[in-house]
């Protein structure tokens, strides 16, 4: 290595460290209870649910989280017709995130922007639609749409963003069941640290309410929520919970290396602190609290933080009887009773389970806590299940706290994939 004077070596070391520090600089979202961060956050603090009845093909009325953003804000009608719901959600969120970031998008090198979109599944909606369509023609496949393949390829949501924004860097989806929202951010962090891209648009999306299969599958599993009042159907940790409310939505972020964000004076929502992704290797569906606890611990280690440093823990809990208890067991194992400043909440109680978008949306709902020092609650807990009675649970009403320096976000998925993401308050 050539000789460097002392100040130059320090300068290079500083640059090197800052190139490994990744920060959130923009956010766009659509959720069942809000199409902007401000609206979404306000509804989380006001206890406003986004769950409503939805007619589902073959099944009749089900409860679901439905988004009402305007896709024509950023797409032509033809693009909406040709593309997918996941694509429209992705484009809306990506455009909102880019606008929010303050990036001078026209001046950016589009080859150096990465698009990393977490999805639970993709293609079910479009395949079901085509099968339904040809059922009207005695299942004659000559009536099958030529758009079927571009609509159903796994990279469709990311590809539609690429087409809409003219981004020519890597654009693909990350299939990680319901851990996928976190995975979009984690993968983007990795790519930025590797220097593969200079900006990333990342997070998770879900169009799952438009496939009857996911509703029917959960119903057959005995895991589909029902309630006479739709707004009370999603009730993690409540003794009377009876399953999942399926939702659509999306939350996409712009991530950048700290040095780049600082150079342009960007607003910084928070810094990626640490993360972990691991696998249960134990069951197709049932969670594994040992592996979940391991995932949380490894994320803490990666962040160089301890459990007591976490001021908000956003749970994955989906309101299935067993899943909630398992996750609470994992959290009890890690956080115990020695974390008096740790507040635990759940966003699905408002918006249902947004599948591939869940982790990304749930993080978004908590990020404003860095500024307002309020922790949004878990609603619909009328009768707390003693097995879910964790210290620090924020129930039914927001909690004003003294400090929020770190948020830990859990998202777990079928086939035993776990993801934990820690976002820290940004401090230069």
């Amino acid at each position: 290595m050539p000789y460097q004077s002392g100040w130059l070596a320090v300068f290079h070391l500083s640059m090197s460290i800052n190139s490994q520090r990744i920060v959130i600089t923009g956010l766009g979202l659509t959720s069942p209870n809000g199409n902007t961060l401000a609206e979404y956050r306000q509804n989380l603090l006001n206890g406003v649910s986004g769950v409503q009845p939805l007619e589902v093909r073959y099944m009749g009325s089900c409860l679901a989280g439905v988004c009402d953003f305007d896709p024509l804000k950023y797409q032509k009608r033809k693009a909406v017709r040709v593309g997918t719901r996941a694509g429209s959600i992705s484009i809306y969120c990506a455009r909102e995130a880019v606008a929010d970031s303050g990036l001078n998008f026209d001046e950016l090198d589009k080859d150096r922007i990465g698009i990393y979109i977490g999805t639970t599944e993709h293609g079910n909606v479009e395949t079901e639609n085509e099968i339904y369509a040809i059922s009207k023609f005695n299942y004659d496949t000559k009536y099958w749409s030529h758009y079927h393949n571009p609509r159903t390829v796994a990279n469709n949501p990311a590809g539609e963003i690429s087409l809409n924004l003219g981004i020519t860097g890597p654009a693909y989806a990350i299939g990680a069941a319901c851990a996928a929202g976190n995975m979009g951010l984690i993968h983007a962090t990795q790519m930025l640290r590797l220097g593969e891209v200079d900006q990333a648009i990342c997070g998770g999306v879900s169009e799952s309410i438009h496939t009857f299969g996911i509703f029917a599958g959960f119903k057959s599993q005995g895991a589909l929520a029902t309630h006479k009042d739709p707004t009370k159907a999603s009730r993690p940790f409540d003794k009377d919970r009876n399953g999942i409310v399926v939702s659509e939505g999306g939350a996409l972020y712009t991530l950048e290396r700290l040095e780049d964000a600082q150079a342009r004076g960007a607003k910084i929502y928070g810094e990626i602190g640490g993360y972990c992704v691991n696998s249960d290797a134990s069951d197709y569906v049932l969670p594994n609290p040992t592996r979940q606890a391991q995932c949380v611990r490894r994320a803490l280690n990666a962040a160089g933080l301890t459990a007591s440093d976490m001021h908000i823990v956003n749970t994955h809990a989906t309101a299935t009887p067993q899943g909630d208890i398992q996750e609470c067991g994992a959290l009890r194992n890690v956080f115990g009773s020695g974390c008096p400043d740790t507040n635990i909440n759940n966003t699905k109680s408002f918006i249902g389970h947004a599948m591939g978008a869940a982790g990304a949306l749930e993080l978004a709902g908590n990020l404003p806590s860095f500024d307002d020092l309020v922790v949004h609650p878990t609603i619909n807990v009328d009768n707390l299940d003693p097995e879910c009675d964790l210290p620090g649970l924020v129930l039914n009403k927001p909690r004003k706290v003294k400090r929020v320096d770190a948020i830990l976000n859990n998202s777990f998925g079928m086939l035993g994939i776990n993801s934990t993401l820690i976002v820290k308050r940004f401090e230069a």
Partner: protein
Amino acid sequence: MTNDEIKQVVTDIIADVAPDEDVTNIKPDVRLRDQLELDSMDFLDIVMELRKRHNIEVPEAEYPELASLDSCAAYLSPKFTALGK
């Protein structure tokens, strides 16, 4: 079905296939692609909708017959007649 009616059938399909386009002033003697934003996938859609809505088949080799509203009318007229329409 008269030629004007056939042109209306095709225009209605184009309105659905290309919903951002103004289909009220399509010049019948000018190629559709020269006056509307239509790509090859859109023409596949037009062929599909003729099949779905009117049970008319357009073989791939004959797609150029759909170039303009006038050529559509000339090409589709015998097909509608054969179907008793």
